[in-house]
């Protein structure tokens, strides 16, 4: 017989320390996402080169 499936449990409440940790993690994620926007912008400019301005309006 297989083992009974384990039940996921949510924490009763987040402590202020947990919340602060979560906030720092979200800030780091926001910075990474902002970095990715700059990354794709610069790479697109370089890959496309001067032709980026040469497009039908």
């Amino acid at each position, binding site marked *: 017989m297989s083992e009974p499936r384990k*039940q996921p449990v949510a*924490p009763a409440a987040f402590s202020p320390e947990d919340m602060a940790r979560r906030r*720092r*993690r979200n800030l780091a994620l926001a910075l990474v996402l902002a970095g990715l926007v700059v*990354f794709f912008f*610069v*790479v697109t400019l370089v890959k496309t080169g001067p032709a980026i301005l040469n497009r039908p309006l």
Partner: protein
Amino acid sequence: MSAAFDTRNDSVALTSTGEARDFFALLKPRVMSLVIVTALAGMATAPSSVHPVIALASLLAIAVGAGASGCLNMWYDADIDVLMTRTAKRPIPAGRVLPSEALAFGLTLSIGAVLVLGLVANILAAAMLAFTIFFYAVVYSMWLKRWTPQNIVIGGAAGAFPPMIGEAVVTGDLGLHSLVLFAIIFLWTPPHFWALALVKSADYARAGIPMMPNVAGPAATRRQIVLYSLVMAPVAVLPALMGFGGLAYLVVSVTTGLAMIALAIRVRRVTEGEAATKACYSLFAFSILYLFGLFAVLLVENGLGLMWALPKVMG
């Protein structure tokens, strides 16, 4: 053991307390730094060049891909990491990151890194990165590591691919230069890891991993460390003979290669007590410096154009 990782409990925690630094630790930053140096050397020694922004973007994708494979390795190995002193403090066994989070993080970064490298560089480089991640996360972590004492010998290929990916980024092809760099890292891996495995054999025994000292014994492992070092040191001189390493590389590769052999012989000779442990740690620590040193000199010579060229003997 933490509640987050203890799957024997009746319940499983839904949240982790992981911070950004814990997720960064999942990427094995020290391994990533070696990947960056070796991939960059692969780019620098390639016979053509690429726009610096494309090189930097590709390097970032390669580093993230390598980190993602490290993350998947930590996800899969969490059950044995918790049993070993060296790895018990990693984010998953320590309970700071949930296994499901690590799996999602590793898979997302793997797919993202391969896609970005394909878009920024070329399909060959992206395919090689995908293969490297597969080789490390699946072939090494899930299969070789728990099955054979040759685990790190064959698995070492995963760590040796970055220079080839670097060359593929620049040329869209694979050449002899990066194959030589592959061979250097491939032959360097066994003496490097076995020096540590000799000291940590009790850890590996507890976790049931068939490392060479646990299977073939310390004496056979010590003999093989010397043999691999004797083959590796001359191979590491090849870049100078093939014309993509200059005078500085020749001097550094010969002197540090001889030092590697000397330290390996010391590991072979000193087999008892604290002195034996010290000999193993010395070889392990020096081997990291050795590989960084070789590739750093190649980078300076080829990347910065500071090469005192030698006559090409072969290749």
